[in-house]
């Protein structure tokens, strides 16, 4: 169990799991991570071990990928990575370097890297150094969505093998959704599981609203098991932790619909109708305890006579089921 107490905040999350931090630009996320890496006040501790913040900075066993993606100056990438690996007895970093697409850059000087290259090298350095905890400050902001997804998944895979926890700061909700188990939401000052944070997130960001469902197992033949039930799905990334079903992909009907390209039809109960704007409404649907959201127009809600407790059919296509 990890425990963090700082500025009157108190967070606890299980060892091996990731904590995500989201908040608007300038709210203090970077300063928080900097404090964990270098500050001395507060408490950051795993189980009953010593409070890391009482140790000198270089003995905390942290892997910090700072937002500036700073690298060791005036030397080649491999010089830096080798030195760090020797220091931390990390023998297999080349494998990870390959995974992150850094191998072709090893001979370059650190100050000649492009923005995205720097970030990936800084990330690998952090992974090499992390003995206790990874601190990732916007680690993929210079990468495109697919590369970012790939890199984060690779890191999650590596940390899973080493049972390492991480704190991830990101301004992309999908980065958090793809990797984290716990989320601190700065604006509402709330610390919660990803699922709970997500529920709040949905209503605040209706245009990004989606259901996040954990998988029972890996996908097979275009199907996944969720909540014990098979769902048709699109292609999923390897190591997918959960699937995402966007609210605007979900439609609602009274009757089991006729044949169409819509593959998944679930029988659900309306548990809430949240007014978003003159043209939008989010219907919260319950499917055996799992939340599903549908973003619809008030007109449609009226036409269908939607009301709390009504049993309806929710439809979404196989391709609406994506890796989070």
């Amino acid at each position, binding site marked *: 169990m990890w425990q963090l107490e700082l500025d009157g905040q108190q967070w606890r999350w299980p060892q091996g799991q990731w904590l995500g931090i989201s908040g608007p630009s300038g709210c203090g996320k970077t300063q928080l991570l900097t404090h964990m*890496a*270098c500050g001395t006040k507060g408490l950051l501790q795993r189980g009953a071990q010593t409070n890391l913040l009482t140790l*000198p900075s*270089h*003995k905390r066993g942290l892997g910090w990928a700072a937002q500036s993606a700073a690298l*060791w100056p005036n*030397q080649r990438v491999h010089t830096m990575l080798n030195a760090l690996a020797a220091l931390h007895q990390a023998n297999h970093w080349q494998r990870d370097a390959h995974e992150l697409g850094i191998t072709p850059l090893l001979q370059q*000087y650190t*100050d000649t890297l492009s923005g995205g290259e720097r970030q990936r090298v800084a990330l690998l350095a952090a992974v090499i150094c992390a003995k206790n905890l990874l601190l990732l400050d916007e680690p993929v902001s210079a990468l495109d969505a697919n590369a970012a997804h790939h890199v984060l998944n690779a890191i999650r895979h590596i940390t899973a093998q080493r049972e390492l926890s991480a704190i991830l700061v990101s301004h992309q909700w999908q980065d958090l959704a793809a990797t984290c188990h716990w989320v601190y939401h700065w604006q509402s000052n709330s610390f919660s599981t990803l699922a709970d944070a997500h529920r709040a997130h949905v209503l605040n960001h209706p245009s990004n609203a989606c259901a996040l469902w954990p998988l029972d197992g890996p996908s097979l033949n275009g199907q996944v098991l969720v909540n014990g039930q098979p769902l048709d799905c699109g292609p999923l990334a390897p190591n997918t932790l959960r699937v995402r079903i966007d609210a605007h992909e979900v439609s609602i009907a009274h009757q089991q619909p006729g044949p169409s390209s819509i593959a998944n039809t679930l029988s659900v109960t309306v548990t809430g109708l949240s007014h978003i704007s003159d043209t939008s409404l989010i219907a919260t649907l319950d499917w055996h305890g799992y939340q599903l959201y549908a973003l619809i127009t008030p007109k449609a809600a009226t036409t269908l006579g939607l009301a709390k407790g009504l049993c309806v059919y929710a439809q979404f296509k196989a391709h609406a089921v994506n890796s989070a």
Partner: protein
Amino acid sequence: MNAAIWITCKLALVTTLVLLVLGTPLAWWLAQGRSRFLRTLVEAAVALPLILPPTVLGFYLLLLLAPDGAIGQFSQSGLAFSFMGLVIGSVIYSLPFVVQPLAASFSQLDTRLLQLGRSQGLNPWQLLRHIVLPATCHAFVMAAALGFAHTVGEFGVVLMIGGNIPGETQVLSILLFDEVETLNFAQAHRIAGGLLAASFALLVVLYSWQKKRGHTRVAT
């Protein structure tokens, strides 16, 4: 004259080495140390030899190095007029030339970079080796060159505490002064010209060598 060259080089080398060893930790403390007030005082003290005429230094050194002086008492017959005395004088005299470039360069280091390095598990020594040295090697070369050069160019202090003993404390600058004062211009030209040429050559080599690798992303 050969003896003078040898003594000058030996003095400059020994002084530079001593200064690099003593100056690096001192400069680090000046640049990154905690106590701001104390640092300011020490910083001023380090810079003193710069602003003080060599004669002031020489005067106090004469008093200190005398057989009954604060330093001289630890030796048999005082340290003035000995090579050791010259080294002590030169170390004090050239101290700011080594410490200041180092401290300036250390204090320009990005705090975030140092924080990062520390969090990566580097102890102070490793931090120096992997981050500080690569980032400030320019300053080290500069500090060594300045320390060496300034010791070679030392005149006033040596004039006062050296005693002009050929083969022992008569350095080139003193010898040259003598030659000029005795109107021995031919020999003076030889010494001055030689020093000029050698210094220039040394500097050209040094500066060509330390020119940064051109790996900036400048478009052309």
